[in-house]
């Protein structure tokens, strides 16, 4: 039992905004009170208490990220070293940290739950193996569906109901949590070297199915199945100048459904080409503010090295041709693909400067912190361990202005950031890093400090230097255990996986089996991830 005593508590989900208040913990959960001699007290007066961070969109495990690790030995050489000790596993940090380092880095920053945002079903077993080796944090994952050819074929034939059962079966086969749509139809077209750029045009190889149909159908199915997390969508035309029209059109298609717009920064550009690219964050924010069915994460970029990893194959080929650097591409039969290109964002580059501003603009112009969350689409825009830099930029307008002064003047004409004075409050930071993403993910025990919540708590020394404050939490508790103290990992616990079992008609297997034998190269029985593999998983059954 444990009492965090005298800290200033920010628990936006429970309407607590900086009150001095004790937080009590028993059996890994938050409780109203604890009594007796066995209670350890963490004196937190003068400190700031947050619910543990929740990352709604990150890439930390699985075939694509592991592919990237193998491609970039030079990055690991330059990365922070994680040295083996009796407590810790060895590893490397940097842009694509090893699994153990990933757990240590997230926990070290006060994050206790992460959502791996792109899992192909065929290699989901691999993702779970890596998540098992990612310590401390709890983990959920989103399953890639918007280019699944069995689903697309059903949409083509108008078989909505069957598609619903197939999708539900697939989520459980992958032991996933949510549904992810990446470049709907575009990756399927990429299998022929094509893309899907217009939402209303049929996808290459199909007669009727358009990206718009895929988006609408998936969103409807996710709502129908009452999945805790809405459709998680990476829009078509990621990163392309002028893509704002596609993004707004996608949002219109989603009217009447819940949806989470992933890494919105990469989808809020105006202009006709790279030389005229400009921010359209204001237009996106205006639409978004008026549509409460949507949530989003920022996908902010920071200057420096990154590796772009996305299921968006065609975009990655373009980026390879633009950069002339390494290119990895991995197409997954019938389901999805992924591309990998190392990239350096430079402050002196006008395009990168605009991208940097767009991420911040979205975070500042979207007025409801419960609907926009802090991410960098790790490792695409920047590494997750750089989140404190973004927090600093959000909380400190004068620091932002200082950074803006370093940008090329041509970039300043294409952004609105210089005119934005908003500064985030601590309560708003707690919302965009924890309470909001937990609510959007539909995780009732995460992102708050009310009784019954998992005792995932982060305690900061308050400092006017917000970057420093958020980089080095004083304590981090995971499930009631003190895992980080004074910047050092003190205890390593196993995080658990959160998975969802939607209801479906068991007979769907009889429909799938013959298709499977025709299109796939693994046995139908060997396709689903075995439940025994996920020891200690938290399975939510949906009726």
């Amino acid at each position, binding site marked *: 039992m444990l009492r965090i005593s005298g800290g200033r508590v920010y628990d936006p989900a429970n309407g607590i905004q900086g009150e001095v208040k004790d937080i009590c913990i028993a059996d890994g959960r938050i409780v109203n009170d604890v009594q007796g001699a066995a209670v350890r007290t963490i004196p937190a007066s003068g400190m700031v208490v947050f619910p543990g961070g929740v990352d709604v969109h990150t890439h930390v*495990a699985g075939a694509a990220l*592991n*592919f990237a*690790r*193998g*491609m970039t*030995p030079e990055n*690991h*050489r330059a*990365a922070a*070293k*994680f*040295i*083996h*000790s*009796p407590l810790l*596993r*060895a*590893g*490397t940090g940097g842009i*694509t*940290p*090893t*699994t*153990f380092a990933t757990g240590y880095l997230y926990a070290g920053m006060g994050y206790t739950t992460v959502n791996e945002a792109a899992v192909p079903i*065929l*290699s989901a*077993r*691999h993702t779970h*193996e*890596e998540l098992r*080796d990612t310590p401390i944090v709890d983990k959920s994952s989103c399953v890639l569906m918007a280019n699944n*050819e069995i689903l697309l074929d059903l949409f083509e034939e108008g078989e909505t109901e069957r598609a619903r059962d197939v999708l539900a079966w697939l989520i459980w086969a992958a032991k996933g949590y949510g549904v992810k749509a990446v470049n709907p139809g575009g990756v399927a077209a990429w*299998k*022929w*070297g094509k893309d899907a750029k217009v939402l209303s045009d049929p996808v290459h*190889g199909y007669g009727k199915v358009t990206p718009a149909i895929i988006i609408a159908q998936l969103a409807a199915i996710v709502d129908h199945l009452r999945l805790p997390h809405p459709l998680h969508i990476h829009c078509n035309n990621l990163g392309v100048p002028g893509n704002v029209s596609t993004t707004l059109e996608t949002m219109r298609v989603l009217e009447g459904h819940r949806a989470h717009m992933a890494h919105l920064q990469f989808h809020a550009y105006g202009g006709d080409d790279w030389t005229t690219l400009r921010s359209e964050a204001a237009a996106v924010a205006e639409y978004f503010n008026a549509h409460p069915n949507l949530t989003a994460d920022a996908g902010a970029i920071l200057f420096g090295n990154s590796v772009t990893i996305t299921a968006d194959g065609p975009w990655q*080929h373009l980026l*390879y*041709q633009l950069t*002339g650097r*390494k*290119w*990895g*591409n*991995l*197409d*997954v*039969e*019938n389901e999805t*693909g992924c591309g*990998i*290109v190392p990239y350096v964002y430079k402050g002196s580059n006008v395009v990168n400067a605009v991208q940097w501003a767009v991420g911040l603009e979205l975070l500042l112009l979207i007025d409801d912190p419960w609907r926009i969350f802090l991410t960098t689409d790790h490792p695409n825009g920047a590494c997750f361990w750089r989140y404190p830099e973004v927090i600093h930029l959000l909380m400190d307008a004068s620091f932002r202005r200082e950074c803006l002064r370093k940008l090329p003047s041509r970039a300043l004409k294409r952004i609105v950031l210089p005119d934005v004075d908003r500064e985030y409050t601590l309560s708003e930071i707690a919302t965009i890093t924890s309470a909001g993403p937990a609510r959007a993910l539909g995780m009732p025990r995460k992102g708050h400090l009310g009784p019954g919540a998992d005792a995932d708590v982060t305690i900061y020394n308050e400092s006017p230097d917000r970057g420093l404050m958020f980089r080095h939490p004083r304590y981090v508790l995971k499930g009631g255990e003190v895992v980080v103290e004074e910047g050092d990992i003190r205890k390593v616990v196993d995080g658990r996986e959160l998975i969802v079992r939607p209801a479906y008609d068991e007979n769907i297997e009889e429909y799938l089996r013959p298709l499977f034998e*025709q*299109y*796939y*190269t*693994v046995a139908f029985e*060997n396709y689903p991830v*075995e439940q025994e593999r996920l020891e200690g998983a938290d399975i939510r059954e949906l009726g």
Partner: protein
Amino acid sequence: MGGKVTCTLGEVKNRADLIIYWGGNPADCHPLHFSRYTLNAKGKHVPQGRKGRTMVLVDVRETPSVRFSDIFLQVRPGKDFEVVTTLRALLKNRPVDEARVAETGLTLEQLQNLVDRMKNARFGVLFFGMGLTMTRGKHMNSAAVLTLVAELNAFTKFVSMPMRGHGNVTGADVVMRWTTGFPFGVNLSRGYPRFNPGEFSTIDVLVRGDNDAALILGADPGATMPQPAIDHLARIPTIVLDPKLTHTSRLARVHITTATTGISAPGTAYRMDEIPLPLKPILKSPYPTDEEVIRRIYEKVKVKPAWSPAAYAKVPCA
């Protein structure tokens, strides 16, 4: 700078109309590759199977795979790198020296024809085997085909894939990448992973005599490695875990018999395209699994005083 453009085998089955095998003999070494994944498989977009595909075989000698191919290109031993580099130039319509091309055993015309086929394929795939990766040039031969294939994507859809041998060698790559960041040849002596093929690759380590103990798992270097490497294994304490008494077991100080992977030991193995598959044992072995024995050794070492200083001294360095 190259990279790697690949896919899972089902993509090949469903789409490939041009299949190139380079430096390998799948008919003998991967007997079901043709029927399950490539040439003879009926795929979603290649419903006619074999008739819808063209197969090119590039190798230094005639093997039983030749009769499966439509086109056989016999390259002189050790000239693969020259051929692939020439193809890269031809792809971009750049000049090459015809006489030096002929030294590869193939004519400029043959190579131009191959480039044209590759460019005009709807979906092409290049599988490369040990005949490419273990002959003169080694990793650069692999780099050459990977780069050629990446560059082909400016013209059409093209992928490549190594024809990995040994059962779960792919799994070893995958596991090492997520645990250490590097696919093989990882040195952990300084407490964190370091990678440098040539320095930390086994043959080099053994031949130079750089290690002073060895634990051999699921391999028999005593049967396959160069003699100086084997001599070194015999000199130092070598420990072998294997379902059988191997050549290496005979020169080892310690041998522990283990259950056979996938037959009497459960777990996971990765296919050559990095798809993980479950291993379901049918027999009950009287021996413990490798996993269990390694765990027991780990636990024995773990209770000994840590050899590593709690924090490594920061070595002063310029």
